[in-house]
């Protein structure tokens, strides 16, 4: 559809402009600067409305964000669906009880590109200086697709946050996230 492509193109341009500063707007139009934390760090969480692994992490994401809020860590959700509207994201936020976390629709992939995120769910942690200190999985609950562990044995995101808060190097700054691919917008191919 021509108008659809036009709209997508306009969005790409607008968001590319935004990505220079890493600024964007949440679904309610408020300004979001996940790469310039107001506190000690920001966790940027890449999610999708229809990725089962991403969805299964909703309670854990909320638990971590709540636990670290008082320590000066902020969280933001970036929706990486191929196409999704604000109403669908609002419904998803409500269904999965994400009430306190600002969310944006990263339709241009500007945030994903800047954070080098390729999978949902994935977490990227930016420290107060704006440096990316952690990128990867939230924990090791999934040993592989379809193979959940009975016990999580590595809490990589929490370990990264604890290290940053303690002024120490992050033990594993990069881990492999497991879940759904973040697809980049591409022209329809006949």
């Amino acid at each position, binding site marked *: 559809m021509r108008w659809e492509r036009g709209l997508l193109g306009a969005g790409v341009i607008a968001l590319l402009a935004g990505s220079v500063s890493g600024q964007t707007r949440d679904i309610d139009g408020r300004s979001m600067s996940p790469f310039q934390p107001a506190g000690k760090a920001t966790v940027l969480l890449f999610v999708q409305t229809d990725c089962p692994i991403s*969805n*299964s992490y*909703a309670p854990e994401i909320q638990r971590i964000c709540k636990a670290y809020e008082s320590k000066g860590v902020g969280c933001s959700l970036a929706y990486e669906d191929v196409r999704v509207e604000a109403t669908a994201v609002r419904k998803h936020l409500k269904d999965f009880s994400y009430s306190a976390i600002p969310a944006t629709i990263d339709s241009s992939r500007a945030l994903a590109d800047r954070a080098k995120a390729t999978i949902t769910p994935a977490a990227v942690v930016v420290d107060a200086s704006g440096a990316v200190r952690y990128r990867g999985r939230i924990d090791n609950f999934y040993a592989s697709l*379809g*193979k959940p562990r*009975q*016990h999580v*044995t590595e809490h990589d995101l929490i370990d990264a946050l604890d290290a940053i808060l303690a002024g120490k190097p992050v033990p594993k700054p990069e881990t492999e996230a497991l879940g759904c691919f973040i*697809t980049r917008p591409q022209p329809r191919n*006949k």
Partner: protein
Amino acid sequence: MTMRTRSTFRLKAEATRTLLVLASAAFLIAVVSRGEAPLQAQNAPAQSRVTFTETIAPIVYENCVTCHRPGEAAPFSLISYDDVKNRGQLIAAVTGSRYMPPWQATHGYGDFQDERRLTDTQIQAIAAWVKNGMPEGPKAKMPAVPKFTGGWRLGTPDLVLEMPTEFEVPASGPDIFRNFVIPSKLLEDKWVRAVEFRPRARTVVHHALFAYVRSGAYASIDGADGQPGFRGLAPIGANPNISPAGPLGGWAVGASPRFLPEGLALPMSKGSDFVIQMHFHPSGKAEREKSTVGIYFAEKAPDRMLRVLQLPGLFGIGSLQEIAAGGNYAMERSATLPVDVKVYLANPHAHYLGKEFKATATLPDGTTKPLLWIQDWDFNWQDGYNYKEPVLLPKGTRLDVRITYDNTAANPRNPSNPPKRVWWGEESTDEMGSISFGLIPVRREDEPAWEQFATQQQRGTLLAAGQNGTLQRVAANQARGLLAAPGAGRGLGRGGAAASPTAAAAAAPAAITSTSLPPQVMADLFSGFGGNPGALQRALDVTATTIEANPSHAQALAWHGAATLYYSSTNADLSALDRIGLFQRATKEMDSAVGIAPDDIRVRMARGVVLRMLTPTMPRLANVPGLIENARLDYQRMFELQQGQLEKLSQHALGELLQGLAELNSRQGKTSDAEKYYGMIQSMLKGTDYAARAGEWMKTKQPLPQAQTNCISCHTGQ
């Protein structure tokens, strides 16, 4: 029946859960580069021409959309071009690793119905299509979207049952195993050809197993924790005292409902409760489940019964030994077929540590037939495997089953971290292991031979389970579980879930009483032993009621236990595990009674008599020597308690006492003690049958053939 699920023929329910790493970049490259090689299958289009409408849509429609469509279990729809294109990379990765479509059995090792599998050519086509930018292709070539009927897939059911209330599945947390009870209100016994299952919250319902149980069998635990149903992955029917009961199949994500083959059907009793055991997998979002089942009946009883051969028997109870913490373990079991059989299905079962299943048939001429091979068992895919064509195996064929376990920390499915030592058991942290083969003897006249073979197999399994200590461990675990179970303290009466009063008795030693039961109870009991079921039931009811009022009533415990043991040993309708369960309860009740009142002759008499009577005919039960020793101790204590007044006893009482003591000593090989008591009989009971029997023993000093206790002829209360 969803014959797909192994549960269909789970004996468990009669009486008692490779994937490859997400393709790394390297793997994807490998797939893609293979895709660049010329595709070899004759119909495969050249990769540059792979388009959605021409090549990909037919693959997806045939293999994926059964689940990947709106309202179904799988997470996203794959109906439209955009749907598939948006997931292209993921589809290429998960098909390349063969994580999707999900199918655990190794291709080619057994030829199964509904095998969910893509060919190498199809996988390569998907990879090539994704690599080339996922072109749509000519719209005119787009195949029709498959039609899915919204209603029952097997037609209008004969009986539709729905969960009475919704069950809330939380957003997160461990997987949930929960059982739901639905009264069937059936007015007559029926034969079930199929059960079609319709879950509502499809994103969280992973699989379901079905069974019927006697009405009210689970009434005391159903809803006891404030939510509908009751928890547990212990197979439905695991508890004793729920007969009549039996398995009725199952359902797993992606399974197609089917009728049983060859007009076979499973029994379902009138008035019974239908039980669904569901496995829920929390999705991140709270859901409410209220499932519906459609049941399809046969018009009449089938003329043949589907037989089950389990290897190893009874889910490995006699074969599975200790699985060391941090170690690997293998269990092997073979059986040689006594008659020609046709095998219809193979249903594997293990818990989380199970790793590899392999079953092979070696025919008498030395040729082999592959039956089933699962290389990376996943408890979450509770599939059964139905052969496309029944596998014909002639008499003399040897079946070999090998099951391995991975109890290392490197196994992500290990329920214990760090790993723990594991034994056979029903909890998710225990293990089991078997393959159940559903079969029928080719010739009807071979049915008795099969029956005999099956009985021998089961007897061997239970004997082994007793010898390797598993039965004793299971009994101890059950006793611990019962301490916490709601309704503990209820006896084996009519209706009501049974729970051992042992725990209650042990917990309340201060309330020890040994008031006497009415004499009629003892008369009823002996009459019951003599073959009067009405009298036995009366004795069970009176003692159960007494125990309910006073859980530490020693005589009631002892006599209830004795009656239960007799019932469990002589009731041919009981399944093997029901029998074990009742046996365990009965011995515990009697042992606990002796603990409470060691010097109560009637307590000692109940245990001593029933053990003495039943041990010779119950070789299949565990720890027979221990039971004989208990019986001897009981007779010994009765003797001690009455020493000095033996002369005052009736001829019958004295004869039974001395004969029992002599016989038990003889059976234990204590010949000099036996001789002492047989000597007393000869001197004190001259001219009686007891003396004649003692004389007979004196000739060989070997245990005599089972001496029927004469109490039965004296106590004939109706």
